[in-house]
C-alpha cells in the first residue's frame, strides 16, 4: 500500500522539478511573481518591495514546530547580508568578498560557487558585503566591490559579461542586489563616505551595455543643481545603495538615495543638496526623473534614505511607504510624490514635526558642532537598510527600529580623491542612556504603532511577512524569531549563534515551505518536521 501510494508522488515531483529547472525567468514571471509563491524572484520578493510571501503552510498554528533544515557556510568574515533568490528549486545567493553561489534549495548542497578576485585597494566603506543577485533568463546579475556589474551563467556560475561601471579607486563600489526590469539590470552605486557623485545605472541584460545612467547629483544646467554650493556637487555623494522597486502601472522605478558628502558636515555645501536622501521616481526605460521627494534636506547626520520603499494600496489610493532613517514614517502618493503623512516612529529630537509639504523642520540645535551635539536618532537612524515588510492581510507595515542617540561632532576635512570623506565623528550617547531595538508594526493609514517587540540591543535584521499570519525577523543576539503578525507575540525562535545582518525570505520546494536567513557566516533554512 505504501509503495503504491508513493510512486505517483515521486513521478509528479520529478516531472515538475525537471520542467522547472530548465524554465527561464522572464520579465512576465517577475511581474507575476505572486503566481509562483514557491519562488523568490527579486530582492524584496516582488516588485512592490513588500517582502511578503503568500505561502501559508508554515502558520500560526504550527510555527512552534519549526526546525532547521540545512545550513550553508561561507566561512568568511564580515557581515553576510544576502537575501537569496529561489527559482524552481535552486537558491542563488551572494556573500562576503563578492562571492556568489547556487545551492540545491532542498539540501543546501552547492551546485556552483563564484569568487571574485578583488583588487587589494577597493574602498568598501562599511564592510566587504553584498546583498544578493537579480535573475533574468539564464543569467544572474550582481554588482561588485570594485564597481563592476557582472552576469553569471545561472547553471554554472561562469562569467558571461563583466562591465566596469566606474573607477573604484575614486571610492565607488556596489553592494546591493540589482533589480531586473524588462531587459534592464538596474543598480545604484555605493560610496557616500568617499565624496563620489552618485548614480543609478541600467545595463542591457544580454550584453552588459549601459543603457542609461541617472546622476543623483544634478550637473550644471540641470534642475536641482542650484541646491549645491560652488563645486560641491562634484563630490556630493548621494549614493543609491539599496535595491529599488518597480511600479508597472506607471512604468516607474522608485529608487532611494543616501547622504550628501561629507556626511556629517554641511559647511561648503550650502543648500538642500538634491537629490541626496531622496525617493526618486525614474522612468524605467530612460532613467529620466519624474518626481522626487527629499526626506532630509541638507543632511548633516548621515541619514541616508536607503531603506526599501514599499508600494501599498489602501482602497483606491496608490501609495508608497517609507520608514526613514531620520525617524519619520512617510506615506506618499505614488503618482505625484506628494506626502500623505509623515509621523515619527521612534525617538526624534532633531525636528518637532513636518511642514505643510511633509518635510520635517530641522531644529537649529541639531547641527553637529566641534564639541559634539546630542541628536536622536543617531547616525545609524531609527531604521537602516534592513528590509521592512508590508502584509496585505493585516495591512500593517513591519520595520526593525533602533533607539540610539548619538553625539555628533564635526571637523573640517579636505577632499582627496578616493579617500574617506565624511568630516566628523559620532558616538553612541552611552552614558546612562541605553540603546535598544524593536520590531514595530505600523498602520500606514494613520502612522500609529500597533505593536512593538523590544530587543535588548539594536538589530540589523530585515523582516518577512507571510500569508501564514506570521512575521519573521532576527536579533543582534543571534535569534531568528517567528511572531504572530497580528499581535507581535513570539511563537518560535532558534538561536543561530551570531547576529543577523540580512533579510529573511520564504520559498517552497516539492510542496514544502522553507524560511531562510543569513546569520554569522551561515545561511540557515527552517521548515516543519
Amino acid at each position, binding site marked *: 500500500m505504501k509503495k503504491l501510494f508513493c510512486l505517483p508522488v515521486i513521478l509528479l515531483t520529478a516531472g515538475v522539478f525537471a520542467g522547472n529547472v530548465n524554465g527561464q525567468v522572464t520579465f512576465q514571471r517577475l511581474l507575476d511573481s505572486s503566481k509562483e509563491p514557491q519562488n523568490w524572484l527579486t530582492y524584496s520578493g516582488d516588485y512592490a518591495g513588500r517582502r511578503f510571501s503568500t505561502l501559508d503552510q508554515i502558520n500560526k498554528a504550527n510555527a512552534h514546530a519549526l526546525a532547521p533544515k540545512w545550513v550553508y557556510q561561507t566561512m568568511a568574515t564580515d557581515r553576510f547580508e544576502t537575501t537569496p533568490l529561489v527559482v524552481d528549486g535552486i537558491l542563488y545567493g551572494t556573500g562576503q568578498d563578492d562571492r556568489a553561489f547556487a545551492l540545491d534549495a532542498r539540501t543546501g548542497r552547492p551546485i556552483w560557487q563564484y569568487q571574485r578576485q578583488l583588487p587589494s585597494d577597493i574602498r568598501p566603506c562599511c564592510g566587504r558585503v553584498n546583498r544578493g543577485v537579480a535573475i533574468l533568463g539564464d543569467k544572474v546579475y550582481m554588482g561588485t566591490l570594485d564597481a563592476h556589474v557582472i552576469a553569471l551563467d545561472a547553471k554554472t556560475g561562469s562569467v558571461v559579461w563583466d562591465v566596469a561601471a566606474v573607477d573604484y579607486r575614486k571610492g565607488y563600489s556596489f553592494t546591493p542586489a540589482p533589480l531586473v526590469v524588462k531587459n534592464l539590470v538596474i543598480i545604484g552605486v555605493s560610496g557616500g563616505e568617499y565624496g563620489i557623485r552618485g548614480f543609478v545605472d541600467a545595463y542591457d541584460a544580454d550584453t552588459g551595455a549601459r543603457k542609461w545612467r541617472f546622476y543623483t547629483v544634478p550637473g550644471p544646467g540641470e534642475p536641482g543643481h542650484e541646491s549645491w554650493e560652488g563645486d560641491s556637487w562634484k563630490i556630493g555623494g548621494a549614493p543609491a545603495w539599496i535595491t529599488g522597486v518597480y511600479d508597472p502601472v506607471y512604468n516607474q522605478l522608485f529608487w532611494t538615495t543616501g547622504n550628501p558628502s561629507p556626511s556629517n558636515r554641511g559647511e561648503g555645501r550650502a543648500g538642500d543638496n538634491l537629490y541626496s536622501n531622496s525617493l526618486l521616481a525614474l522612468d524605467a526605460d530612460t532613467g529620466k526623473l519624474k518626481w522626487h521627494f527629499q526626506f532630509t534636506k541638507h543632511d548633516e547626520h548621515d541619514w541616508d534614505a536607503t531603506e526599501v520603499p514599499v508600494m501599498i494600496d489602501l482602497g483606491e489610493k496608490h501609495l508608497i511607504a517609507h520608514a526613514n532613517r531620520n525617524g519619520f514614517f512617510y506615506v506618499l502618493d505614488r503618482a505625484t510624490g506628494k506626502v500623505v503623512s509623515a509621523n515619527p516612529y521612534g525617538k526624534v529630537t532633531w525636528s518637532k514635526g513636518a511642514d505643510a509639504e511633509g518635510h520635517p523642520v530641522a531644529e537649529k540645535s541639531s547641527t553637529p558642532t566641534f564639541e559634539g551635539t546630542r541628536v536622536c536618532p543617531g547616525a545609524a537612524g531609527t531604521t537602516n537598510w534592513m528590509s521592512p515588510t508590508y502584509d496585505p492581510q493585516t495591512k500593517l507595515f513591519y520595520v526593525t527600529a533602533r533607539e540610539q542617540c548619538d553625539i555628533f561632532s564635526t571637523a573640517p576635512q579636505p577632499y582627496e580623491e578616493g579617500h574617506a570623506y565624511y568630516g566628523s565623528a559620532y558616538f553612541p550617547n552611552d552614558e546612562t542612556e541605553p540603546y535598544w531595538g524593536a520590531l514595530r508594526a505600523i498602520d500606514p493609514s494613520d502612522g500609529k504603532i500597533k505593536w512593538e517587540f523590544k530587543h535588548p540591543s539594536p538589530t540589523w535584521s530585515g523582516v518577512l511577512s507571510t500569508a501564514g499570519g506570521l512575521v519573521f525577523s532576527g536579533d543582534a543576539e543571534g535569534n531568528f524569531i517567528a511572531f504572530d503578525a497580528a499581535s507581535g507575540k513570539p511563537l518560535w*525562535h532558534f538561536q543561530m549563534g551570531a547576529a543577523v545582518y540580512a533579510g529573511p525570505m520564504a520559498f517552497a520546494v516539492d510542496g514544502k515551505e522553507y524560511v531562510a536567513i543569513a546569520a554569522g557566516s551561515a545561511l540557515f533554512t527552517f521548515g516543519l518536521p
Partner: protein
Amino acid sequence: MFNTKEYRLRRVSFSPKGRIVLALAGVSLVGLLTMTMVVGADDKNPFAGDAKAAKLGEFQFRINCAFCHGLSGRGGGRGPDLTRARKRHGNADADLFRTISQGVPGTAMPAGTNGGIGVGMTDEEIWQVITYLRSVQVKAPEKPVGDAAHGKELFYGSARCGTCHMVEGKGGRLGPDLTVAGSVRSADSLVESVRNPSRRLAQGIKEAAKEFPQEYETVTVTTPDGKKITGVTMNEDNFSLQMMDADEKIHLFEKDKLKSFEKSRESLMPPYDAKMLSDKDLNDLVAYLLSVGTK
C-alpha cells in the same frame, strides 16, 4: 568618615542587592598581545613637531579614532587614553605607525587601512595622527601620584574592591577584572567610575558580529518558585538570561518561566563618595591600578 563607610558597607551587604560591585567601566581584556615585528630605525615621523600636520592629524583623529579613544584622545569607555606617554604597544613613532596601520590582533583595535578603522587612512594621514598624538601627549611619563602599595591595601582591605573585582587572579568575580584597567583607562575615568559607577556601565562579553557588548547591568528576577535574586547580567537575549548573584553563583534562566524580570542601569557598586573613600585614598587606589596595568 570611617564609620559612615562601615555603615554603608554593612547596610549594602545586608540589602537584597548583595555585596558592593566596583563596576569600573570599559575594562576589557584587550591589549595583552606583544607585537614582535622589527621595525627599521628610519621609520621616523616626517611631520614631527609640525603644528599644521598636528591640526590635520586632529581632524583625522576625530574621524577615525575618536569613536573609541574620545574626542581629545583621553580615552573613553572603549579605548585607552592616548595622551599617556607610555603606550602599551610601543612608544616609538614606528610602533605607533604599526599599531595604527596594522591594528592590534586580538583586540578591538582594527587596521587603519581600508576596511579597518573608519574608511581608511593613508600613510601620510597616519603620520599626521601621530603628530597630533605627540602634541597632546603629557610631557613626563605618567607616574602614579598616589601610594600604590597603600592602594593595594585599600583594594583588598577596607575599600573592599577585591570583594567583587579581580586583579592578577586574586579577588572577586561579580565585577569586571581590573588587571588591565590601569592600562586601558585614564586615571580620570577610573576616578569617575569609583565616584559614579552608574554613569557609564562596564562592558562585559562581546560576541562575534554583535554590535554592542553586554554591559554590567543590574538584574533582579523572581524565580518560578518565588525566590528573588539580584545580580549582574553576564549575558542576555530576548529569551534567556545568564546572571551572577552576589554569592558568585551563576543562574541560567528562560525569561518566560520567570515570575518577574527587571533590569536596571543603576550599578550594584555603590558610588564611593569622599566620605567613604577620601581623595587621597582614591589616588592611592588609582595608583595601584595604574602600576599593575602598566607593568
